[in-house]
């Protein structure tokens, strides 16, 4: 069958649009997550949202709505407790992560009968995305794009050095809360396409691939969106023709693209050159440290 012929099908059109919208929101939110080293927090939010899916099944409302509530609450609790240093950041993430999963399992177990689409929440199913899902994804993508375009500079500065940003009068706390909520919503909207277990990769692999070639926040965002979309479309096609799960295939494509990019970088720039540069930088730092040590020691004696 011709690839273009596939686009006659409504579910393929929906999947194509879902891939595009997921790539935009995940490309942007993922760059923020990776740059700020918040991947583990995102993992916690993702898995905690399973609690909302379980409660949704049990009480008979949309599991995705439950996931959204759980994800946002988890994000706010994690941000708040981390900021106030009430508990270690990794500990609170682990607690929220396992609590969400535990609640999800309990409520799904208690739900009478069969839990429809449960596997699609866990592993994603881009070809079952509905029109309603697409509208929600469109609103989120537009929202997150607008926030990052309008507040690009403050977001960049807060992400780089929160304390300095505070001295410049940037409302760091409010910005952090806004961004963690956007991250939580991005995660929830990507659950339909990539699944709870796999969504983290859509938020991190394109960014790490982009980071092989650029060290600019804005460029990483842009390249991540393109790579995410490319991998989603290839993954979608491959999964259709081989009749294998779409979410897992998309992730597999992301990893393959990452490995190809890594190989290209090694071939282009040379592994040896990179090693030498790194080595000389470390030597340089070590050298300065030694210089300061001897200098400090020497001048101290002079003033005794």
């Amino acid at each position, binding site marked *: 069958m011709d690839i273009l012929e596939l686009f006659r099908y409504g579910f393929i059109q929906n999947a194509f649009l879902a891939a595009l919208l997921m790539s935009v929101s995940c490309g942007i939110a993922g760059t923020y997550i990776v740059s700020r080293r918040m991947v583990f927090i995102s993992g916690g939010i993702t898995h905690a949202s399973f609690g909302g899916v379980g409660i949704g099944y049990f009480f008979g409302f949309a599991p995705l709505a439950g996931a959204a509530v759980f994800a946002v609450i988890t994000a706010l609790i994690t941000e708040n407790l981390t900021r106030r240093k009430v508990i270690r950041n990794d500990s609170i993430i682990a607690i929220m992560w396992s609590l969400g999963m535990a609640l999800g399992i309990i409520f799904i177990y208690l739900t009478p009968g069969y839990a429809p689409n449960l596997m699609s929440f866990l592993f994603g199913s881009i070809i079952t995305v509905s029109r309603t899902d697409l509208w929600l994804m469109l609103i989120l993508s537009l929202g997150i794009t607008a926030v990052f375009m309008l507040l690009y500079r403050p977001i960049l500065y807060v992400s780089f050095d929160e304390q*300095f940003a505070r001295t410049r009068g940037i409302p760091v706390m409010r910005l952090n809360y806004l961004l963690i909520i956007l991250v939580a919503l991005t995660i929830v909207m990507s659950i339909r396409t990539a699944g709870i277990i796999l969504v983290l990769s859509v938020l991190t692999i394109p960014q790490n691939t982009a980071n092989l070639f650029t060290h600019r926040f804005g460029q990483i965002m842009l390249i991540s969106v393109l790579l995410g979309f490319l991998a989603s479309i290839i993954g979608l096609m491959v999964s259709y023709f081989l009749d294998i799960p779409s979410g897992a295939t998309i992730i597999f494509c992301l990893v393959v693209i990452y490995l190809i990019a890594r190989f290209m970088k090694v071939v282009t720039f040379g592994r040896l050159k990179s090693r030498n540069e790194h080595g000389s930088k470390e030597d340089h730092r070590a050298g300065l440290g030694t210089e300061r040590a001897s200098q400090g020691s020497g001048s101290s004696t002079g003033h005794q």
Partner: protein
Amino acid sequence: MEEPLVHIENLFAAYNQLSVLRKVNLDIYEHDFIGIIGPNGGGKTTLLKVILGLVRPKKGKIIYHFDRSQIGYLPQGSQVDDRFPISVREVVESGLETGLKMGGRLTGNSHSKVREVIGKVGLDALKNRSIGELSGGEMQRTMLARAIVSSPRMLILDEPDTYVDNRFEMELYGLLRELNRTMTILLVSHDIGIISPYIKSIACVNGDLHYHTSNEINAEQLKVYNCPIEIITHGPVPHRVMKQHND
């Protein structure tokens, strides 16, 4: 009498239950160049953070007779992630940001100010480099450029000579002396020997604050003030600190 830029009165600061600053009184005047010394954990950085508004005092008063956004700040070296995807130029530009501006773009004047400051700290050739590609000293120059790019009225520097090589250390303090003509400077250092030719007065923080004004601060004068110097070694760099104050 001249009004101080910052008036600190009976100030106490603590982290949780741990008291860090006790009954600190300090007036900072226009064109002051104060060196702040003291042992590790003595409260030097906390004092700076209180002045910057980053740490809320537990008790006491702090009054500013100028706009607090006119403070430039160079934090301690280890604070930022050097793998963060940002260029030298972008870091310096962040020193011009104030408040939350939607879609804010730099004006032509700001661009030329950024270029000028990058040149002043000798980073012209590196301005488009990612900070991950910088040495420790180059990173510290970048942070200094960020602190001074807004031409602040007060400049607060927390150990600015960390990682910096000998040559730039001299340039750095020469630059600070020049900046002191238009800026009030507060400088935390472990090494009084290095900063003494440049500073105009010295504050020793060891929980309490002891303030000595002198045009020429040297070991002899410090003996007069009963501030014995002790050399301590922890890690690769021996530090010179004030052991304790008898006054």
